[in-house]
Each structure stands twice: as structure tokens, then as C-alpha cells.
């Protein structure tokens, strides 16, 4: 079977695209792998190829009380951000995608503004603003800073899923005499759970990895990315790549766990 020149050209470009995508994915993960390699270096200073490997720095990082506190701070921030962001963004997404209302077009654009804004500048602006209000910086002020950026992102994530929501289902429930609360509990929420979960996932992981907003708004408290940055600039030890790798693995585990959970729930027959 001989292919037309058109079809052959198409096949060639498909192969190029697949190769290019593979190459870029490899490039994206190269630095993450480099960090991992540096973290299992036995000596204090990194030289490649490694003379000796050991998990000693992982152990040290794991046992460090200071790092335990950083992790707790980061977890507290990400947890609080997730809870608040999901609630605000759930209603935000309803306004974005579910209801037709007079100010919707403008609202859809205003929500995007914090996303289209450089985060370091937003962080500094918030620092100034908190200061003008006479507030003390702490991890709680950083939670607020994270929300300013994360709520719009989560709103978008949830809105994209809500677009496929069929309003007729809600209507039918109302017609059958269900109350508002019943409709929300029995119709709306079950359909929207996947969007809510992915929104929560985004909120948690984006807060966990955020650096530019935390840098200016945590005050004396320190999150994991902030500590890593401080040590990169001055005082490198292999604990830096070790903690970086741990943070990456933790994020991947959360993502994978949620993905598997979602798959398991989808397979379960509807009750």
C-alpha cells in the first residue's frame, strides 16, 4: 500500500511532534533528576559523576527538627489555603460558568487579573498593604497572599468542569419538589465532585510549592521553598536537594494518590 505524498508528510510531522514532545518532557524533568542525584551524594560538595552515594543526607534531613518545623508550616499553609480556596472558588465557579447573570462577562475577566500579574510584585504589594494596616506578618498573612492567586486558578479549574454541567438535572429535581438544600446535596454536588477535587488538588499543591508570594508575606515564619532558597544562596549542603526531592516526591505522591482515588471512584457503580 503506497501512501499519498500528503499522507506521508502528515505522518512525518506526527512523528516529529511525538519526538519533540518527548524531548521537552525529558528536559522538564532533567533538573528534578539532577537534584535527586545531588541529594544522594556522600560528600558535601557536588561533583558529577558521584564518587560515592549514600542516603545520609536524606536521613539528616528527615531527622532535622528545623526541617520538621518548616514542613509543618508549609503543610498548615497549604491545608488552610485548600479549605478556604475550595469554598470561595466553588461559588466563584458557579458564578463563572453555571449562572447567566448581568455582570458575568466582566466578572470572568476580573477573576483573571491576579493570574496575569507577576507574583513577586503581588507579594511585595501585599507586604506593603499589610504593613499599612499595621499587621504582623506570619504564615497566616501568607495564607491570605496565596489565596489571592490560588482562588482565581481554582475558580478556573472548577469552572471548566462546570461548563459540562447539565442544568436540566437541577430543574428536574426542583420540579419533583426538592428543596434548594436537597438539590445542592443530592444533585449538584455529586456531579461537581470531580471538579471540586481537582480544584482542591491544585490549591494544595500550588500553595505547597509557592515561593514568590511566601517570600515577602510570611514574616518570621519560613516555608519549605523559602528555606531552600535561603540555603541555595548561602550555605549549600546536600540537604537542599534532599529536601527539594522530598517535596517533589510528596507532591507527586499526592497527585498520584488523588488520581488513583478518582479512578477507583469512577469505576464504582453509581448508587
Amino acid at each position, binding site marked *: 500500500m503506497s501512501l499519498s505524498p500528503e499522507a506521508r508528510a*502528515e505522518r512525518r510531522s506526527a512523528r516529529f511532534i511525538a519526538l519533540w*514532545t518527548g524531548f521537552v*518532557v525529558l*528536559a*522538564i*524533568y532533567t*533538573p*528534578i533528576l*539532577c*537534584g535527586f*542525584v*545531588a541529594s544522594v551524594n556522600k560528600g558535601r560538595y*557536588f561533583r*558529577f559523576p558521584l564518587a560515592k552515594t549514600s542516603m545520609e543526607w536524606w536521613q539528616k534531613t528527615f531527622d532535622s527538627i528545623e526541617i520538621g518545623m518548616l514542613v509543618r508550616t508549609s503543610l498548615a499553609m497549604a491545608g488552610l489555603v485548600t479549605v478556604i480556596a475550595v469554598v470561595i*472558588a466553588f*461559588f*466563584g465557579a*458557579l*458564578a463563572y*460558568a*453555571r*449562572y*447567566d*447573570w448581568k455582570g*458575568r462577562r466582566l*466578572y*470572568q475577566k476580573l477573576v*483573571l*487579573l*491576579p493570574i*496575569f*500579574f*507577576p507574583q*513577586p*510584585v503581588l507579594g511585595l504589594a501585599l507586604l*506593603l*498593604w499589610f504593613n*499599612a494596616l499595621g499587621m504582623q506578618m506570619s504564615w497566616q498573612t501568607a495564607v*491570605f*497572599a496565596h489565596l*489571592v492567586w490560588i*482562588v482565581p486558578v481554582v475558580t*478556573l479549574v472548577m*469552572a*471548566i468542569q462546570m461548563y459540562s454541567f447539565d442544568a436540566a438535572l*437541577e430543574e428536574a429535581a*426542583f420540579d419533583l419538589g426538592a428543596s*434548594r438544600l436537597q438539590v445542592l446535596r443530592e444533585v449538584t454536588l455529586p456531579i461537581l465532585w470531580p471538579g471540586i477535587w481537582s480544584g482542591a488538588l491544585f490549591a494544595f*499543591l500550588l500553595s*505547597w510549592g509557592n*515561593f514568590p508570594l511566601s517570600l*515577602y508575606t510570611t514574616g518570621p515564619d519560613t516555608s519549605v521553598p523559602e528555606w*531552600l532558597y535561603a540555603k*541555595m*544562596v548561602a550555605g549549600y549542603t546536600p540537604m537542599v*536537594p534532599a529536601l527539594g526531592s522530598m*517535596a*517533589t516526591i510528596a*507532591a507527586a505522591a499526592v*497527585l498520584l494518590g488523588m488520581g488513583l482515588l478518582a479512578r477507583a471512584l469512577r469505576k464504582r457503580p453509581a448508587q
Partner: protein
Amino acid sequence: MNEIVASPTIAQARAAGPRFGERMLSAGARCAIPVYVLLALGFLAPLFAVVAYSFATPRGFDVFRTFTLENYRQILDPANTVWMSFAWSLGLALLTVAILTLVAYPIAYGLARLFGRSAGLVSVLFVFPLFVSENIRLYGWVLFFIKGGVLDGTLKAMGLPGAPEFLFTPAATLFGMVYVYLPFMLFPMVLGLSMVPRDLIDAARDMGAGRLQIWHEVELPLAMPGILIGMLLTFVLAVGAVAESKVLGGQSVIVITQDIEIAFTYAQNWPFGSALAVILTLIVGVLTVLGIGRLDLDRILGRRS
């Protein structure tokens, strides 16, 4: 275009039992209140504070009590080299956008058209780095490019002379920006390309259009809104980027956000830093408002109507 039509659901919900406030605001508007409050307190108010500070006496903290244009005069003073930071930031951001357009387009095309069932997994691979703090990823590149690092060591082990000096140059800063902002270009592009109906391409082909012609006359114009959002988003984020020039660029160039940061921290000159931030915000804000002002977001994000 779907215009504003009162949903029958809302009408029925109202009939079911009107509550306080429902007559004043529609259901959609009430749902938008928490987001609006957050944006007012966390975005608008801080920007207002920055504007207010930019008119305060240089090096002072007497905001709202003094009014002076001295900070702006300092920026415009030719003796001040801060304009170079603006030039670097704008130039690097433009280059980042140009390179990323070329890098991301084939991948976006693949995700929208070719990868089929594996597109979901490939997307996750591109999203995941967003959850790893950018300084961790940039530092990984330092380990890759540094003397005695992964690239250098590998080349030497192969009997080659080793890696060229790349780290701590403006090119390394650019490389870092291209790396960090890839997803922000890629995903809007995918949304844009997904908006092109397949039937239309088939129809064009049936009528005898060549591949280049289809791309140029059908695909590109229809995917343009998504591509433009990607370019805009990448540009505004790259203009304000600072981690790349600090970690990979070794401060071989000073970008504008770093000048702002210095004014806020070491120099303790908040009014001057604020004036710089106002100018940067104006650049970003004008571009953003022009860019997203006319978009139909319902269509781009995939509303079924």
C-alpha cells in the same frame, strides 16, 4: 453568542421560596461576592497602597500625608540606570514569548489532535512541575550546568573537553524563563487549538486545500485567541520574573523586579520601589486589559451552549 437569558432554574428556585437578598441580586452575583471581596482586599487594595506609597517622600514611610512626584522624577533621571532593568526585563520577556511560541506549538498541536487517549497523561507531565517550587527546579539546572556538574562531568567522562560557560549569563536567565513559563504558554495554546472544529479542516482538505494552506487559513486564525492568551500570559509573568535571573543568571543582569525588591528590602526606600512597581503594573495591566478585554471566555474554556 449566548446572551443573558434568565435560567428557568433560578426562576423556579425563586418561586420555591424567596429569601432575603434574592430580589436584590441574582444567584450568579451572590456566588461572585466572596471572590469579589477577596480580590478587593487582596488585589485592588494592595495595588492602591502601592500607588499611594509611590507619591510619598523618598525613603520615608509617611504615606497618605505627603504628595510628591520625586520618585517618578528619579526614575526618569537619565543618570539613573534603572531604565536598563526595564529594558532587560522587556527584552527577555519578548524573547521568552518568541521562543516559547515555537517550542510549545508542536506540543500543543499534539495534545489537541494527535495524542488521543494519552493526551491526559502527557498533560499531567507538563502540569506537575508547576507544583514544584521554581527555585528547586532552577537549582536543578544549576547542578546540571555548573563546572563539575552533570553536563560537564558527562562530557568529560566521554573524553570531550567539557561544557562551555553558560551559567550566570543573560542567556542562562533566558533559558530559565523559557523553562519556567512553558506550561503557561502550552495550555492556553491547547485550549485554542481545541477550538478548531475537525470538520472544518476535513472540509478544507476535501476542497483541495494544501496542508500549509489549511494551517494558515483555517487552523491558525481559529486557534488565535488561545495562542494570544498564552503569549500574553507568558509575557506579563516573564516581565515580572526574578528567580531566574537570581538563581541561573547569577545576577549578571538586574531585572526590574529585582530593583523593586532591593528598594523594598536593603535600600528601605519603599516609595521609590512603589513607583517602579506602579510603572511595571501599568505595563502589565494595559497589556492584560487590551488582551483579555474582547475575549469570549465561555467559548475558549469550552462552554456547551
